[in-house]
């Protein structure tokens, strides 16, 4: 008697719990893939719009002009007659659209009629826009200056858009200079410091305190480092907005990360390696050189590549210390003496993106620069980050002690 009822009770319960489990798993699935999808949307839109700028159908398939030229102001002339007619039509369209609203008090027949007229109007507007595009003249800054007789303003309307012509050459060069210098400083200081802290310093209170504060500094917002760099390098030491100030600000920013991850890489080397070497009579430095560093180096390398991505990607620390919104020379051009190289401001890709996304309007003339710069930047960062992740996976597989 009891058997069947027990079984049936158990089955309903298990069915309910099965449903519950399935619902829960679906929810978790949605959470996971909503992250994947939203980032995918960001990648996809920027890649789609940006690749139109950076790639081209003819040889050499990459728009080298965009990658090497300096950013310039774009000057646009449009035929005035067409523009005026276009404006008029657009005004009529707005009137029609207002009449379509329920408050305008039109009957249904009237509304359908308006709709039909709207359709005709839209077609006309499209045609006019095409004409306007054919008649339009786009000039870069150099071409505009070279022009002796400018198109007459009676026949043409004139607009200009800052940063929209030319390319991002100086920004790429500036970012490269900033990254190379600051990473060199940060890695030298950071790795040497990590070796001392792990291998030499007595494992006492001081060393623990240093470790703790380094870990905590790694989480300090980058803008605070920017503030510090601006105050001490740019103003207090009087270097001005310069490459040197940028190098030091950025390297101070990544130092805690480099130290912490280098320490971790060194700590991951088993103590038996050191003891074995010391037991054979090797000195401390020999032990470090032959038995610790070779095993810790891959880990340090990974972290250093990750910090390259961080340094190249940060905008806040260089906003006031190293970056110019516009500089129409490459960093090695126009220097009167060699030391000027360190005391010049440079353009940098992330800051350039900030400038073109917030300081200029968004329209068909500016989109090229906006998406082009962001796409190139994303590709650069992506290469660094991907290398670091792949390296890490490789090291994890290789290092089994």
């Amino acid at each position, binding site marked *: 008697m009891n058997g069947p009822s027990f079984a049936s009770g158990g089955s309903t319960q298990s069915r309910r*719990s099965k449903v519950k489990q399935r619902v829960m798993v679906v929810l978790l699935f949605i959470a996971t893939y909503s992250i994947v999808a939203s980032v995918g949307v960001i990648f996809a839109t920027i890649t789609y719009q940006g690749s139109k700028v950076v790639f081209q159908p003819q040889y050499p398939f990459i728009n080298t002009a965009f990658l090497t030229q300096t950013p310039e102001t774009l000057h646009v002339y449009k035929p005035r007659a067409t523009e005026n007619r276009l404006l008029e039509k657009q005004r009529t369209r707005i009137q029609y659209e207002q009449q379509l609203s329920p408050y305008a008090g039109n009957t249904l027949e009237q509304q359908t009629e308006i709709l039909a007229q709207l359709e005709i109007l839209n077609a006309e507007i499209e045609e006019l826009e095409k004409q306007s595009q054919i008649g339009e003249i786009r000039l870069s800054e150099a071409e505009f200056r070279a022009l002796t007789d400018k198109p007459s303003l009676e026949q043409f309307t004139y607009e200009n858009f800052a940063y929209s012509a030319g390319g991002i050459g100086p920004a790429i060069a500036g970012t490269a200079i900033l990254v190379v210098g600051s990473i060199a400083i940060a890695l030298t200081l950071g790795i040497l410091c990590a070796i001392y802290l792990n291998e030499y310093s007595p494992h006492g209170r001081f060393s623990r305190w240093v470790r703790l504060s380094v870990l905590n500094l790694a989480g300090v917002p980058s803008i605070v480092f920017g503030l510090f760099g601006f105050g001490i390098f740019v103003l207090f030491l009087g270097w001005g907005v310069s490459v040197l100030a940028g190098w030091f600000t950025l390297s101070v920013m990544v130092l805690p990360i480099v130290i912490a991850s280098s320490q971790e890489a060194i700590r991951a080397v088993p103590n038996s390696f050191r003891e074995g070497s010391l037991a054979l009579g090797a000195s401390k430095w020999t032990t470090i050189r032959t038995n610790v560093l070779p095993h810790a180096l891959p880990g340090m390398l990974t972290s250093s590549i990750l910090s390259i991505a961080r340094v190249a990607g940060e905008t806040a620390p260089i906003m006031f210390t190293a970056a110019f919104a516009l500089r129409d020379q490459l960093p090695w051009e126009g220097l009167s003496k060699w030391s000027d190289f360190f005391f010049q401001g440079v353009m940098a890709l992330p800051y350039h993106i900030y400038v073109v996304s917030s300081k200029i309007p968004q329209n068909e003339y500016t989109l090229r620069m906006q998406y082009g710069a962001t796409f190139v930047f994303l590709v650069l960062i992506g290469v660094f980050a991907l290398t670091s992740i792949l390296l890490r996976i490789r090291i994890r597989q290789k290092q089994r002690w």
Partner: protein
Amino acid sequence: MSTSANRRFEKTFKNLFQSTAFVTICILGLIILFLLKEGLGFVGSYTESLREYRSSGLEYVDLMENKYRDSIELQNELTQIRADWIKRLQDDRQDQRVIQQTIGDSEFSALFAELRETTLPLGAYLKEKRDYVMHARNDSEEAIFDQAYLEGLQSDRERYDSIISQLAEAQIALTRELAVFQTGQKGLDRRLQKAEATALAYSGGVIHHLESLSAWKADASISEFRALISFFTGRHWITASDQQDWYGLLPLLTGSILISAIAMTIAIPTAIGAAIYINQFASKAERTLVKPYIEFISALPSVVIGFFGVMLFGEWMRTFSNMDAFAWLPFFPIEERLNAFTAGALLALMAIPTIFTLTEDALENVSNSLKEASHAVGATKLQTTFRIILPTAISGVISAVMLGFGRVIGETMVVLLCAGNRIKIPEIDLGGEFLFEPVHSMTGIIAQEMGEVVYGGLHYRALFMVGIVLFLVSLAVNYGAQVFAKKFTPKMR
């Protein structure tokens, strides 16, 4: 090789490492010292500025101005009510003539015509006084605000008293009329009641106001501590003003907190959910693909995310909010495309990889024997996950959430580009409209205003104070996360 040469060699290396470590630690220590030095200078300068504000009598004028501003605000509110009333009637498709009859153009305006007339002389009086003070503040190189000057400022108090008492009478009259006036529209009547209460409070507050004016003293001292407190509790951040600069942290702090709260509300469930899914339920192929992908997001530069917000996401949100299907939501449609929600939603993307990675690590570290034991007593996979594995790993999860919060509150570029940058304390209401208001933040203000400050000036130091606050918050969050992770680590392994 001789041992002494060897030893020297050894020593050189040790010294090299030691000195580098020393230099590095010094540099890192220097950051803290420099921040503190520049920031603490603020307290002194701000005290000085506030003292001058008081001794020059500008505070006195501002005290009087409060009453004027309240009166103007009340008038504006009444005008607004009238405009809204007309709009409602129009929306109900009433005829223009009917509207005029119901509202009674003259009648409603007459309600506060007297108020308007009595406010006018007050405005003129205040302008006179303000010019007097500003003239002295701007022109004298060495500011001397002596007894004669102050007497000049306070000389015609009787005139002010009579203006104010007239104004108070006008307010009482208004109160009486508002008590009987009805629009017949529910929401508007409630607003009228509110206006009535405001008018009543106004006339009631006059005596207290006049007393506080009499009690005001130009030489009453302001301590450094008061200045510091007024930095942390000040409701205004006004710089480069022609009268008095105010450095109040509150609008920036609340903006930062609002944005972070939105970001964490989105990030915590999705990131932890994703971590649980990837760790417990995902297939091996999913795991190897999705995990590095989400980790990769952490390398995504914030300026790119901000760029996406400015170019597309903000506009998408606005279009979305204008759709008819969402008209029933009280906070839709939104007005500004760049607001706290836009910034918060995008910032969630920056917190997610941190929370995900650390949570996943914490789940991974839970001993397998616990899982097996749970399965052995007949628990389902779901029960095992939520009743055994998650509670065991909870300390790791909490510390992950804290670190994610640290990342969000210190983020600059997304906030600067997408939050709308309006310096205003968000007014928390039940409808949720405050979620879609433009706000400013602590990180954003530094990035926006640092370029225009004078080295060593008050504004410069104020930004360093904000930097110190950010620094301390991030230290606290980081340290808390470490302590949490250590303290509550399960003993069984």
